[in-house]
């Protein structure tokens, strides 16, 4: 997960602060050193780190902080505010041209992920705006680059305009735009070849294409693993093309992604999207404030809640709520729950969004096989309807039959039933507002005030949603 290293380090730096009632100047000095090294280690640009640390120090050394009752929290807040300010305050949406087509041009170094991002962006536009994009294959240099765009286009059901590799990219773009006009495509995405920002000939080609296409958006695609060079790259492209935004790719790796911080600072251009996987739906909107929370190890609660809301079918949720109320949570609900969880994304990812888990040492060795959920579902599917509703029926003989039916070892069936029972217990406890049981479930529990704070926040939100749901039920019934 992105920034995990950064949050680990910052939490270590703050660990000392939390225990003390008052922050001395020496404390601030030590903390700032940790912050500085953490950011540098995360590949944040040199100059950005300097400014960042300086402004945090200036603010932290103010009398208000020193006299405050919880100095650690104050500093965390200052760092958080500063992180958000550096990455840009609000999520910036994609610009839309007043007349169709909206033309988006993708640029970047070789191997940054331009073509993959073109595919993801098309899918995103289709899903959010029912768009009818046309892709223009303007990479005539790299072998099979056009084939790649065609395969990607096919997989998301979008036409690709190409003229082979013998035509000048400027001409391809010109004719591609003409075709888009004829077909009334509302979006045109131009996939350009990867190039170095110091390659004058190829950069001129880009400025020419820009002049021809007059794009609404010029997005720089940057590999989030890029080191200090990220700012040079962003600056080089920005100076020559005047970018409108940035896409950070490969953030599903274990990179600390300091590039996010510095690119915004150096170019002043917003990061609009982040790529988090190889599948075509693995493109997310970039939220600076959420990313800052994640850096601070508060977990990315907002994203989690967002995802949950998007995927949580209200009606199913109501049914689950009713069942929990009666404490009759059964395997059918368990199945629903698993479906919802798996539609939110990979399980590792979700776990790490929960506050206190991102830097929990136990999480290091915590890998969830994506197939686990499928296996568990197979086990439930191998139960009779009666068994699903009444888990107490499951005697050893029935368990053996289920194991054979699901093609899983019997130990796995037993483990799954145990998990189900825990889940059942947790759900009923959570409903009652008692999550002592939950702490036990998550290894060492949720540590630190920050973690508790965020956890409380989550439970409060959940309760609120539930009340709303129950109200709806009443209204519906009356």
């Amino acid at each position, binding site marked *: 997960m992105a920034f995990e290293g950064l949050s680990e380090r910052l939490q270590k730096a703050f660990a000392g602060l939390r225990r003390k009632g008052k922050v001395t100047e020496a404390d601030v000095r030590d903390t700032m050193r940790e912050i500085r090294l953490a950011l540098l280690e995360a590949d944040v640009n040199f100059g950005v780190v300097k400014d960042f640390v300086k402004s945090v120090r200036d603010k932290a050394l103010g009398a208000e902080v020193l006299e405050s009752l919880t100095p650690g929290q104050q500093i965390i807040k200052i760092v958080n505010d500063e992180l958000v300010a550096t990455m840009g305050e609000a999520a910036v949406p994609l610009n839309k041209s007043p007349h169709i087509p909206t033309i988006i041009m993708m640029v970047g170094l070789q191997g940054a992920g331009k*073509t993959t991002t073109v595919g993801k962006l098309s899918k995103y536009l289709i899903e959010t705006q029912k768009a009818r994009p046309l892709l223009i294959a303007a990479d005539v240099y790299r072998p099979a680059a056009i084939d790649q765009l065609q*395969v990607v286009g096919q997989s998301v059901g979008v036409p690709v305009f190409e003229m082979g590799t013998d035509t000048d990219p400027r001409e391809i773009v010109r004719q591609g735009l003409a075709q888009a006009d004829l077909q009334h495509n509302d979006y045109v995405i131009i996939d350009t070849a990867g190039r170095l920002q110091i390659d004058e000939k190829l950069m001129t080609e880009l400025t020419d294409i820009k002049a021809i296409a007059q794009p609404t958006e010029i997005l720089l695609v940057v*590999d989030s693993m890029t080191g*200090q060079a990220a700012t040079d790259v962003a600056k080089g492209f920005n100076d020559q093309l005047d970018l409108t935004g940035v896409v950070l790719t490969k953030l599903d790796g274990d990179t600390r992604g300091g590039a996010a911080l510095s690119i915004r600072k150096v170019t002043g251009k917003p990061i609009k999207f982040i790529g988090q996987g190889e599948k075509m739906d693995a493109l997310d909107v970039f939220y600076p404030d959420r990313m800052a929370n994640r850096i601070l190890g508060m977990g990315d609660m907002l994203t989690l809640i967002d995802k949950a809301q998007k995927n949580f079918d209200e009606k199913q949720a109501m049914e689950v709520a009713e069942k929990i109320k009666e404490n009759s949570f059964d395997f059918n609900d368990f199945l629903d729950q698993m479906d919802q969880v798996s539609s939110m994304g990979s399980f590792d990812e979700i776990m790490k969004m929960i506050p206190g888990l991102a830097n929990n040492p136990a999480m290091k060795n915590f890998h969830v096989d994506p197939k686990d959920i499928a296996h568990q579902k197979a086990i439930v599917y191998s139960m009779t309807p009666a068994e699903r509703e009444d888990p107490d029926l499951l005697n050893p003989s029935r368990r053996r039959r289920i194991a054979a039916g699901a093609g899983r070892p019997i130990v796995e069936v037993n483990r799954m039933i145990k998990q189900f029972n825990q889940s059942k217990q947790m759900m009923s406890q959570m409903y009652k507002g008692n999550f002592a049981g939950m702490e036990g479930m998550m290894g060492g529990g949720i540590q630190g005030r920050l973690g508790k704070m965020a956890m409380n926040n989550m439970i409060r939100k959940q309760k609120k949603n539930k009340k709303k749901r129950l109200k709806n039920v009443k209204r519906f019934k009356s």
Partner: protein
Amino acid sequence: MGLFDRIKQAFGGSSPEAETPAVEKYDAGLEKSRSTFGERLNTLFANFRTVDEDFFDDLEEMLIGADVGYETAVRLSDELRESVKLHNAKKPEDVARVIVGKLVDLYGEAGAQEDNTLHYATSGPTVFLFVGVNGAGKTTTIGKLAHQLQAEGKSVLLAAADTFRAAAIEQLQEWGRRDNVPVVATQAGGDPAAVVYDAVQRAKADQVDVLLVDTAGRLQNKVNLMKELDKIKRVIVRELPDAPQEVLLVLDATTGQNALSQAKEFNQTTSISGIVLTKLDGSGKGGIVLAIRNELHVPVKLVGLGEGMDDLQAFDPNKFVYGLFKGLIDVPADD
């Protein structure tokens, strides 16, 4: 002064024909790396009248800023602190001298028993397995290497084991056409280990000299994809016990500290024998090479210095150090 003798000695062998095309190429390719790394050091020296703790703090920051890695940077600045005291260096020029000497030493020390050459099988086919994250330049490297091996008179076979990424197979096949080298491939989405098995069988049957295996890019924290890579390697070892002669991690030179994590994880899965550093012509820094050598002891074997067929070169640490520190060595020598 001992330092300059040492450096002269180190590069003395190549000094008569120092500006051979290869060296020039390195020079040109590293122009950017040197200017940032060397210039930074010089600026640093210029800005300090006295050598104090702030100086070392800044030096530490600067080294991290050049992508050398946190551990290396701290170790370096600690050692430099000692040497400066030891040599009683006060003036910036003296300090500069000590620091440059230390950097060269460190380079030599880490690379003492380093083997930068590619290894070939004594008999039967040689297998090179290429691994790395997405977009590092695996396929391009294979295309260039195939061209060079072909030119050396070796028979080459390519295996398209990247069955996942869109048009990756076509990309390798296009290289095969350009180089006039056969490519073993299956349809997209096929089992990569099966492709590798077929390729090894064919390499044995056709008595091919070198088999280059292209794999799909994968991020090192994806457990299942890393397991797939492990399986690919097992297939090779089972069919040819001495193979693969080289497991090469292809690394984008613009990568920051994540390069260390990549090297560590890929090393754990496939025990990499060397690194191919690509896109070095565009990288702002050369520091990551220091970090890799000091923290992982995996030698760099090939470097990519451009997009042309001939822009893949054997890695020569001496030339690299020479390129990296050229400006610095000249500066103190002038006064």
